């Protein structure tokens, strides 16, 4: 195992506010890595820096051994980093099918003129893109609604479509920002299975932001905890779960004191 993603002392200041402060972590090839923390802990800012949407104030991001700090989002995407959003961001006016085709199109070699004149390369690439998109829609059970506008899908389907769209980039690293937000426990269990299955099928590495502690505990091999922009803990779910700092961040100081006194205050790991 080697680190696919390595983050070194990453910081982001918005004016005087340090949203992310000196965070380092490394995610191994093939791992499902969890990033948890209370609201406003800097998790999404952290994702934005990994994907080139926000420029870090200091620090470095290495992906597959190369520095990606300061690259533009589309450059990071083309290197194989895909993400989803906490508030789903589909192209609502485009069809479900087109949503999944667009990421692959941007990697095609044929240009505008090839497309307009129907060159053999462009036709072949278009066929391949459509086939690949169709396979992804099968995976998320959306083939029967492929031609509907993406905005017309119900919530759960939009979540799955957004993941399928991220997969259409053929990424090596998949960043999921609170994929279980707004789901009930059985849907969450289904999503966890889906994430595992996707990781197996596409040989992916997954970095997951999640609010829901039980889901992360069950799904991830390692976890980092952010609070007020700082990494306050990192380790296996078992290690992190009973860490007094983590318990305090989530449940407050009282419980931390209880944990320190050996009374076993831990974050619950059942859904």
């Amino acid at each position, binding site marked *: 195992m080697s680190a696919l993603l390595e983050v070194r002392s990453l910081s982001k200041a918005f004016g005087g506010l340090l949203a992310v402060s000196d965070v380092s972590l490394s995610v191994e090839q093939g791992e499902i890595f969890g990033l948890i923390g209370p609201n406003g802990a800097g998790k999404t800012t952290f994702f934005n820096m990994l*994907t080139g*949407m926000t420029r870090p104030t200091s620090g470095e991001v290495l992906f597959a051994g190369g520095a990606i700090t300061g690259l533009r989002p*589309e450059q990071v995407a083309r290197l194989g980093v895909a993400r989803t959003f906490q508030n789903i961001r589909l*192209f609502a006016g485009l069809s479900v099918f087109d949503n999944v085709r667009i*990421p692959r*199109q941007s990697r095609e070699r044929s240009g505008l003129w090839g497309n*307009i004149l129907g060159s053999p390369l462009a036709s072949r690439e278009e066929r391949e893109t459509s086939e690949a998109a169709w396979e992804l829609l099968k995976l998320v059970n959306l083939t029967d609604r492929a031609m509907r506008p993406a905005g017309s899908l119900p919530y759960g389907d939009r979540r799955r479509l957004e993941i399928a*769209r991220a997969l259409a980039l053929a990424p090596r690293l998949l960043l999921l920002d609170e994929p279980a937000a707004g789901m009930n426990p059985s849907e969450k269990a289904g999503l966890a299975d889906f994430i595992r299955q996707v990781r197996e099928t596409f040989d992916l590495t997954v970095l997951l932001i999640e609010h829901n502690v039980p889901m992360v505990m069950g799904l991830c091999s390692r976890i980092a905890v952010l609070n007020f922009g700082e990494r306050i803990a990192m380790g296996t779910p078992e290690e992190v779960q009973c860490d007094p700092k983590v318990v305090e961040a989530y449940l407050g100081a009282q419980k931390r004191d209880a944990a320190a006194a050996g009374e076993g205050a831990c974050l619950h790991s059942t859904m």
Partner: protein
Amino acid sequence: MTLAWFLQNLLNGLSMGSVYAIFALGYTLVFSILGIINFAHGAVFTLGAYLTYLLSVGQFGINGLLAGWQLPFTLPFPLALLAGAGLSGLAGMAVERLAFKPLRARQADALLALVSSLGVALILVNLIQYLFGAEIYSYPSDVLGSLPPAFIFKVGGKPVAVRTVQIVLFVVSLVMLAALAWFIHGTKAGKALRATAENQDTASLLGINVDAFILGTFFVSGLLGGLSGTLIGVSFGLSGPYFGVAYGLKALAVIVLGGLGSIPGAVLGGLVIGLGEAFLPPDLSSYKEAVAYALLFVILLVRPQGLLGGTTEQKV
């Protein structure tokens, strides 16, 4: 109120309306991708008209810096039209790089981009005046080569006249509309453009080079502006460096009337205003310039979002 009278006004209205439509589409394209009105669009319209005139006639009058200067070559009108439109497209790209990109990179307020595009418009118009002077130019009567200046046919015993230039206006505009519709809905670049218009951040995270698409959009917008300037110029002459400003205001009425950001809306809005002007009774013809805003006022009373605008409309 005869059939001939009706047909005559219908043809006049369709011909002008189609030019308004493609001119207004230049605003719409930029608006749908950046959410900003590009006030330099009217100046690019003027620039296109002057460039095509220069390329096809070869010289500009007596007042400007270039008075008496002769272009070493001239182009036949169709080629000059294409070249003028292409150069206007490049001017559109320059507007994006000078007036919009620096502000966007610093995440400035949208209002500032509006002001800076107005600034670019003033610079362009004054540059044109400096170089070419402020007098009125019109094309020589043989600009369309051996084509007759008008076709006259009789309907119910009354003559209906169609100027050849009007046919050119209508056909060129229709071709542009068809090409644009096909580009946006039929090509993968068009799909990526629609995706970019919906959400730039998301598009870039999916590997779309948003910056290149913005630049391309300004090229097409400038091209449409220059083309419509040329068409109006060849039809009515070039009435000075500021003549794009009046048309620019009219095209703003077109896009608001049709529904901001809606492409079918811009086309419909253009035709409505073109026809509205054409059917204005002759004794009110001195109020022609007010037609666009009067129609806008009445329609917005009934549909505040414009004819085809809506909260869930597809932008490009």
